[in-house]
């Protein structure tokens, strides 16, 4: 009887078909992972953005990113994408040290966008090479500070320097601060600079075309060319680019200057608490707008048809801010 019944055993061809189908299903599941594993290069060029005024928040982010990069074996080279007029001295020094340490470990190339001046230049100086665009601005190696002046005595503090100061001692402090900056730049790029220290200390800025001639920069090139150069220097072959944004989530403060000092403004419609004076700065002053040039837009100033105040933003009448932002 059993020999008369149709056999339930698979023929060898059927077994083969089942195996092929099963393999195809498993293969289809695994294929994306296998593709990604083979297609994704191990080597990475990290692009660290340093943009906006140099301040503590930016410096902390840059330090953190560069520390992470140094600990990450898959990152073979770093490009600093820089666009800053400078800012606070200590923040500049923190980035300088972080870039210096990273540069000891792997190729670091700075790629200047529109400007890398003063504290921005300080931060990128330890890079192996500085790329600029023909009309980028670099330089401004020096301290921006108001002239120390003697002030009337303050009564109450526990010592003469607690709330007051001596004019000459303040001059000396400012000179020390400036020398610290200039000396560091001479240590980093003395061989590149085609000028003596005294000329560097004049704190001039140079366009990219001039900077590659006088040693303030090394190559004319875009960000992509800087990335390619960094990868080539490290023999990365196939590589991917990992862009790392820095700076606080809430947006960087913007800088304004008054007649006597630079202020950091932390809000679009700032109150006094949002405006922080910055007495001593590594900042290229012409790149910082003067407070009198900032126009302030407010709802009540916006009028339609020259009539009543409207809530729409179609008006074009603006009020000159003479005492508003940062004053």
């Amino acid at each position, binding site marked *: 009887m059993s020999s008369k019944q149709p056999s339930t055993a698979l023929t060898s061809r059927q077994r083969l078909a089942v195996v092929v189908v099963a393999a195809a299903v498993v293969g289809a599941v695994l294929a994306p992972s296998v593709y990604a594993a083979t297609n994704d290069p191990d080597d990475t060029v990290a692009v660290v953005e340093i943009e906006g005024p140099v301040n503590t928040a930016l410096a902390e982010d840059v330090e953190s990113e560069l520390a992470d990069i140094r600990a990450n074996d898959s990152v073979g080279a770093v490009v600093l994408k820089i666009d800053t007029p400078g800012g606070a001295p200590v923040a500049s020094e923190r980035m300088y040290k972080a870039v210096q340490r990273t540069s000891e470990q792997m190729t670091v190339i700075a790629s200047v966008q529109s400007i890398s001046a003063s504290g921005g230049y300080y931060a990128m100086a330890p890079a192996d090479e500085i790329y600029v665009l023909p009309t980028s601005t670099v330089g401004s190696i020096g301290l921006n500070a108001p002239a120390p002046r003697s002030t009337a005595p303050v009564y109450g503090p526990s010592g003469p320097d607690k709330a007051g100061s001596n*004019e*000459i001692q303040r001059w000396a402090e400012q000179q020390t601060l400036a020398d610290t900056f200039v*000396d560091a730049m001479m240590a980093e790029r003395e061989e590149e600079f085609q000028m003596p220290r005294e000329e560097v200390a004049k704190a001039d800025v140079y366009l990219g075309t001039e900077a590659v001639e006088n040693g303030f920069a090394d190559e004319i090139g875009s960000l992509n060319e800087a990335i390619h150069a960094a990868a080539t220097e490290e023999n990365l072959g196939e590589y991917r680019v990992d862009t790392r944004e820095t700076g606080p989530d809430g947006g960087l403060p913007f800088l304004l200057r008054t007649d006597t000092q630079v202020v950091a403004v932390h809000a679009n419609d700032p109150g006094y608490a949002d405006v922080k004076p910055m007495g001593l700065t590594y900042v290229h002053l012409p790149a910082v707008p003067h407070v009198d040039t900032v126009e302030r837009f407010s709802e009540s100033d916006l009028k339609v048809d020259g009539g009543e105040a409207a809530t729409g933003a179609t008006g074009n009448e603006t009020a000159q801010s003479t005492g508003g932002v940062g004053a």
Partner: protein
Amino acid sequence: MSDIRTLAVAFVVTLAAITGGAAVTGFVTADGAAPAPEIQNEHYVDGDAVANDTPGRATVEMESTARSQTVLVDPGIDSSGGVAASPLALLGLGSPGVADRDIRPLANALIENGHEIGVYVPGATQPRRAAGPGSGGAETRLGERLADADAFVTFRTDYDEAELSAIEEFVDSGGRVIVATEPDAAFDQPGAVGLDSTLEVTTEPGYVYNMEENDLNYQRVYAEPTGGSGAALTEGVDRAVLPSATPVGTATGGGDVLRPIEGSELSTTRASTEAPLLVRSDGVVMVGDSDFLSPENAARADNDALIGNLADFLVAGGQATPTAGPTPTAPSGNQTAPSGNQTAPSGSQEPPENQTTG
């Protein structure tokens, strides 16, 4: 039993393989940062990294033994009813004038040597225009004050025509004048050329700086004596510090007393300059800086000696007027004409109408 042993061995081997593999994998793929060697930045710690911040000391002394003279000071403050022209001036910012303390080293030297000092500040109650008809009509209030003075020190350059006439008359009659200006006077004090023309001196736009050798800032330049006709003004002075100085000159040429040291440059040309920063033309001294007189700056380099010499210069003249009797020529003066002295007895001396503001 052998089955149990086999199973136990298999369990242990498998567990060891898995945990061991995990440990090796974790070690190999470790993502932490190894301790990095310290990077030495010698430029931060070398001996020259910190600027010398010792303020220094000043000893301003006069050699002159001249009789009591009256020195009128115009601090350049345009006081209107006691309120400074600019609110910033109250904070000591943006004011073109000098505060009382800024001229104390010079003033104290004069006071200690028995000389009188008056301060001229045109105010709302005493307008700068001509006084009443009884005083002659054309005479300005400044003219009145100058008529009672032997020397005039001014930090202002924007005088009107009548005042310039009074100053010219004062100089012609033997009065000594020191004009201390600033590089920025050309920006905020229109009319400086009028005073320059009256006194036959010149000022050059721009400021002098020195990147190679300076006193704690590129604008605080050292100046050295030229060794020329102004030797009396530079006695004991090897170097003076002039913060923010502008070049000055005399109409006739010569008369250079102090010039910037080698390596100094002019802001407008960015080229080296030897143009003098302090000149003397007979009874007029023009100096392209006013900050060097302050207590802090008097203690820098040989500024104290320079200030003492300027005090001697001020009291070495004295107006020669028909109504005044001759006075002994000052020992350190080099004015050839016998000098008169119109100074009234100090008891009747008109007190300053306004004191300088801080």
